[in-house]
């Protein structure tokens, strides 16, 4: 059967594609902003809905803890090892601890934990909500006049923004012990020596940066997971796609925002 409209000819195509991409981008930015606004509006029910928020905090925070602690220990261990390899000849051993501390606190801790949580938390949020969407469970909420933003999205977003900084803090704490263990075993640096210079170089700003970064990453993870999950369609395949997209966009978002925040905050 002949199609009604001829396919666009060469010069038209890139322009059409560009136009479509631009429209898509702005539509997405618009709807993400709208959801954020809606979430902020329904947080006024946070006391009444506290059990929903607690449950998500438990799922996002407490259940990710073992993984994050493990990641932390190895992050610290490897940064101490690499510091020794690259700068061991120039750097007095007493600075080994503080070098690890700074690297982990402002950069490696938030970013690595963020990436791991994008997989652990973001994908699970996306898969959960996408399944609910394709099996009409989200529609069932709407039909019973229960706001899905209030019931599903807000508890997840708020919990992620609150819990990811907590997780990253513990991650950094664990990293120091991982780093210390490597220093102690392979470089014969004692406890006092390893931790001695940290109070001297400690700046509250670094902690704030860590908290701002990790809260932002938590927001990125939850926003991608919930937005992509809620807009999934097409059965089991759609759920799979949503899960992948959520991880890819979260990971990208984290790395881009990490750079943006670095330029703003330092």
């Amino acid at each position: 059967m002949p199609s009604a409209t001829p396919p666009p000819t060469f010069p038209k195509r890139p322009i059409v594609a560009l136009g479509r991409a631009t429209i898509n981008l702005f539509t997405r930015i618009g709807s993400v902003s709208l959801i954020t606004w809606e979430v902020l509006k329904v947080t006024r029910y946070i006391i009444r809905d506290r059990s929903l928020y607690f449950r998500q905090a438990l799922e996002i925070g407490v259940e990710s803890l073992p993984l994050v602690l493990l990641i932390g220990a190895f992050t610290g261990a490897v940064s101490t090892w690499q510091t020794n390899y690259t700068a061991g000849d120039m750097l007095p051993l007493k600075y080994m601890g503080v070098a690890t501390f700074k690297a982990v606190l402002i950069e490696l801790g938030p970013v690595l934990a963020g990436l791991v949580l994008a997989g652990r938390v973001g994908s699970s949020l996306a898969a959960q909500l996408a399944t609910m969407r394709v099996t009409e469970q989200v529609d069932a909420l709407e039909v019973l006049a229960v706001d899905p933003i209030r019931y599903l999205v807000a508890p997840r977003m708020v919990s992620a923004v609150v819990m990811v900084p907590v997780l990253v803090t513990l991650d950094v704490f664990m990293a120091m012990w991982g780093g210390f263990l490597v220093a102690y075993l392979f470089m014969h640096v004692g406890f006092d020596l390893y931790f001695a210079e940290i109070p001297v170089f400690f700046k509250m700003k670094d902690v704030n940066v860590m908290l701002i970064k990790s809260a932002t990453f938590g927001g990125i993870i939850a926003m991608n997971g919930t937005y992509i999950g809620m807009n999934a369609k097409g059965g089991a395949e759609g759920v799979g796609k949503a899960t992948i997209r959520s991880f890819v966009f979260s990971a990208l978002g984290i790395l881009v925002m990490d750079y943006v925040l670095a330029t703003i905050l330092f």
Partner: protein
Amino acid sequence: MIRLSHVAKSFNGNPVLRDVSFEVKEGESVVMIGRSGQGKSVTLRNILGLIQPDAGNVWVDGDEVTQMSPVELREMRKKVGMLFQNSALWDSMNVFDNISLALRHHTNMTEKAIEEIVYSSLTQVGLHDPDREGQSAEDIGRRMPSDLSGGMRKRVGLARALATRPKYMLYDEPTTGLDPIMAGIIDNLIRELNTRNKTTSLTITHDMRSAFTIADRIIVLHKGEIFFDAPKEVARELKESPREELRLEKEQVVYQLLNGDHKGLVHPAIADHYEKAHVHQ
């Protein structure tokens, strides 16, 4: 009253509803039949405001759904219950929480009152058998949706919709996938809700026996348009009339649907193959 006027809706350029107008009066039970993919579920979603029609208007209880704000939509939906085709139970919570969620959300009932409603809804849909172990309403309430059979899930879905005592009920294939006896029980329940509680209902079904049990009036949706809209008695008369006497195209299509006849004006591709294979033999 639920009223649709010249509703049209297309998806990705494919028109699903072309021009649909009908109404369901207070206390009436209307059954909508039609082949799969003719827009029956889309019609229900338009009524609930889950999707917006491209053209036309929808009224529920005198208010225009197409003009409602999200808050007004939510208020309207409190009056309407819906049984989903695949039950759509929330699988992260048990049966009790599934049924009680809306009550907790919209009312300030005591825990005791909520319990009473949940258990009476379960009893109403036949999910309470105190004589058999593990089959009392309390036991069922503790179970997770994944532990239930398809028929039980459907009945829990119905109990969930009924718990808020809606004025209007929409049923999307309430008896599909149920055994004949259970289908009969659900049919009777729907009929009873309609006659005793005066619940206005709109049901989609492919089960003609069920359609004639539930309906006051039968509507046929075909190719995105209303082909037939008449009291059940008229439909029955058409169903049982000799085929040769039917002159109008619409009558023939409705006849074919009501009787589940594979021969007729409606000719899906598969029937074509079947005919051809037959001729060649």
